[in-house]
Structure formats: C-alpha cells, structure tokens
C-alpha cells in the first residue's frame, strides 16, 4: 500500500471507523447547533440531543 493510501486509510478509519453514521452525527450535531445559534436560539442543548439520538439509533440497530 502506498504511503498516500495508507495516510488516507488511517484518517478514514480514525474519523469514520466501523459506522459512518457516527461521523454524520458529529457533522449534524455541530451543524444544527450553528444554525440554532445563527437563529439567536440558545443552542447549547442541540448537540447533546443530536449525539444521543444518533448513538441510540446506531446501538439499537447494531
């Protein structure tokens, strides 16, 4: 395996790992929080709820 492929493979395994939905959870949690803050809402509760929701989905369907 070339060094470049090994580099990208490492980062894919590191960020995405066994379940891509958890990487999506991280993007969704921070993205939706940013939108809530932009809309002048107290967005602190958004990320924990989204993360817990995705984790529940992934664990119960595993």
């Amino acid at each position, binding site marked *: 395996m070339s060094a470049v492929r090994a580099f990208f493979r*490492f980062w894919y395994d*590191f*960020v*995405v*790992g*066994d*379940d891509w939905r*958890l*990487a999506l*959870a*991280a*993007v969704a*949690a*921070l993205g939706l*929080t*940013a939108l809530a*803050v932009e809309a002048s809402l*107290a*967005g*602190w509760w958004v*990320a*924990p709820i989204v*993360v*817990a929701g*995705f*984790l*529940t989905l*992934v*664990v*119960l369907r*595993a």
Partner: protein
Amino acid sequence: MNTVVLVAATFVACAVEMVEALTIVLAVGITRGWHAVRLGIAVALVALAAIVAVLGPTLTLLPLDTLRLVIGFLLLAFGLQWLRKAILRAAGAIPMHDEEQIFREEMAEASSQGVARDAFDWYAFTLSFKGVFLEGLEVAFIVIAFGDTHHNLALGTIAAGAALVTVVIVGVVVHGPLSRVPENTLKFAVGLMLVAYGTFWGGESVGVEWPGSDLAILGLIGFYALTAACLVAVRRRRATSLAGT
C-alpha cells in the same frame, strides 16, 4: 477541574492504547528475541514524538474557534466510535477485547515466520514498529487535541508519558499480556470524556454559551453516561428476551 479531567482522559486513553501495543510487542519479543523489537519500539516512539512536536505548535497557529471546531468534530467522531463499541461490549452484543487470545494469536503468527541466521529480524522490527506507532497515533491525536485547545501541550505529553511508563513497568513485571486491565471500562470512560469535550469545544466554536461555563463539561459527561447506561440496559434486556423465546 478542567485540567484534572484532561490529564485523566489523556492518561487513561494512552494506557488503553499502550496495553494493546504491549500485547503485540511482548508476543513478538518473546517469540523472536528482543533486539529488533527494541529498535522497532524506539523508532516508533521517535516518530510519534516528532509528529506531536511538529503538529502541536503548527495547529496553535490556527484561529482558536477554527481549531476548536476541527478538534471538536474529531473528538466527537472518534469518541462516539469508542463509546459505541464499549456499550455493545458491556451489553454482551459483541465479544470483549481479549488480550490473552490476541497474545496467543500474535505468538503463533510470529513463530510461523522464518528468519535467516545472523540476519536482522525485519519481521519483528516491522511488527513492533507498527504496533507501537499505530496505537500511539491515536494517543498523539488526543495529546495534541487536548493540549492545543487547553494551551498546555506539555501537560498532555507528560500525562501520556506517565501512562506509557506505567504500562511498560507493569508489562515488565507481569511479563505477559495485561489481561486483567478492565479495558472496556476504561474505554467507556474515555469515550464519554471525548464525546463530552467534543460537544463542548465544537459548541463553543460555533458560538454556544454553555450554562455554567466549564462546569457544563461535567453535565455533558453525566448526560452521556446516563444515555449509555440506558442503552446497555435496553440491549441486555433485548438479548435476555430473545434468549427466552
């Protein structure tokens, strides 16, 4: 409070990864001799130190909010993987990480590979280098992430170094795989801390004002711990009811 949690998270994460690396190193060293293995470990540690030394200060050049967004995302994605696996293991849905079995498999594999007499054992070198380097990369990331966002790279490095020394001393004394280390419990705890810090820093980077400021981290750890405990209970109950039918 923040510093204590950061040091604890770095120490435990490093210890967990180093236990895995130690299993590989011991299996190869006992089977094939220690010369090439020692060299493999030394080269891997130098490479890891170079990565931390170069990447750590470079990342601090980024604006703090950008740094926190990137690191918050990575901690969330990485921590959620650890937490998912720890929950499924605690619920019995997937097998526990068995260091004894991995040790036996590594020894059998190492014994089956030949080496020319008086030649340098590249197989043992490569295996020990990969074991230490790949497990160490995750630790290096945690050290850089926690160190940079907390403006204290040295403290993270000291915590990781302390964990490394502890695991090596215990490994030399035991001279076998550290199968009695409660690895899943440690991974559970680190997973919770990574996800909590990822949420906190990621949130701060997009403009969230956390109630209670830094104390919100404890609230996040508690919330995620409760969620994880509920998920373990639900998975266990589901397994029990399936076994009963």
